[in-house]
């Protein structure tokens, strides 16, 4: 019988191996699956390729994963913020590889993987350095760049509520990359603020149907990354 609920974050990430490609949801702090990321730090998998819009803030969450030298490459649109220190340092030292992708292209490449579309054309980046070396094609007199799907082995996503089938709803702008990252990973792992009984989520309002979700962990009082960053916390906890 179907029950995707996993007892702990530790258990949920236990099979993420070295070298895996891992998508991590969130736009800045909103929607960042911080407990799952910390479990991945505890697990210690190395040489990861991370796909995420940003590269983390302060010394917790994604920034802490990078600081712990677990990430060899990051695919993202905006790796610097006012409070990001970890990524810039390692990047300048040449210790982490960066593939910079415009935000909309990033979202669409992730969706494409989930939708079985190996590649698509987009107008973004045409005539810029980010299109260098890429295939282009003209449609109706306009040039477009060919962009390829980004698949992942795992995705770590935060949602608001889930049921045991893996149906998900999100909260406000914390939705961001969650739905497409659940679609694009072989194994999507979701932390939910609340696990609700089957039938409680309105089928008209389910944002991620359970077919895209493999594991759900209830984290009822998730840490707030913004607060941790403001408090200058570090993970592993200082």
């Amino acid at each position, binding site marked *: 019988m179907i029950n995707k609920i996993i007892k702990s974050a530790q258990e949920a990430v236990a099979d993420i191996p070295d070298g895996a490609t891992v998508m991590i949801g969130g736009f800045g702090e909103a929607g960042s699956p911080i407990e799952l990321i910390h479990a991945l730090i505890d697990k210690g998998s190395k040489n990861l390729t991370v796909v995420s819009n940003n590269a983390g803030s302060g010394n917790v969450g994604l920034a802490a994963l990078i600081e712990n030298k677990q990430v060899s490459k990051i695919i993202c649109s905006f790796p610097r913020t006012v409070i990001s220190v970890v990524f810039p340092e390692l990047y300048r030292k040449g210790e982490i590889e960066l593939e910079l992708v415009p935000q909309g292209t990033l979202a669409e490449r992730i969706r494409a993987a989930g939708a079985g579309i190996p590649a698509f054309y987009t107008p973004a980046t045409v005539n810029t350095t980010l299109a260098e070396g890429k295939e282009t094609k003209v449609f109706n007199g306009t040039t477009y760049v060919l962009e390829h799907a980004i698949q992942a082995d795992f995705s770590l996503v935060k949602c608001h509520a889930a049921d045991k089938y893996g149906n998900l709803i999100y909260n406000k702008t914390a939705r961001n990359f969650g739905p497409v990252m659940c679609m694009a990973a072989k194994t999507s792992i979701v932390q939910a603020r609340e696990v609700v009984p089957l039938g409680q989520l309105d089928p008209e309002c389910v944002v991620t149907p*359970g077919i*895209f979700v493999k594991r759900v962990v209830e984290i009822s009082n998730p840490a707030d990354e913004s607060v941790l960053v403001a408090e200058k916390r570090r993970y592993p906890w200082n």
Partner: protein
Amino acid sequence: MELKETIGWSTGEMAQNVAKDIHDGAYVNLGIGIPEMVAGFIPEGREVIYHTENGLLGMGKVAESGSEDYELVNAGKKYVTAIPGAAYFHHADSFSMIRGGHIDICVLGAYQVSEEGDLANWSTGDVDAIPAVGGAMDLVAGVKTIYVITKHNTKSGGSKIVEKCSYPLTGKGVVSRIYTNLAIIDVVDGKLFVKEMAPGVDFGYLQERTEARLHQ
């Protein structure tokens, strides 16, 4: 001249054979017609979630007469129901599930299946027929495992399991297993292996009714 089989599985038994091979927790899309019968034979203790490509995951039974909802239909445009834990979505999202390889099993009917696993089930190539394809080509291209359920022979006794399909293809090399009234046949690396035969059917009898070469 119609060849009447006196031995072999009934349509219900064929559907039951398919149902036995659907694992617990599977996401399944059932084609229109005989494939729909499979849902009635899922063994006890297994939970299966049905996808209907017009926009519902968690399709339930056919709606009871009198309580039909005109806006809750399946791919065959039959009035159906939704189970607790269902979700509705639009067509592009629905076919993302299909094309993206998220559906475990799709059960389809067939005009012909070849030994290479090629499937022809959308057109007989009749120039007078109105061409119509629906979601069949997306399903065979995207779903992880394609099962075919079909009578072993046509009404006129012709073989539906052929060396090469003469009808226009739905997809090339897409079928994993064929469930007929006479046998269950696996497609493995361009060869057909008989996995099971109906009571009273032996290999010679089966091969005689099959254009393609069978293997034991």
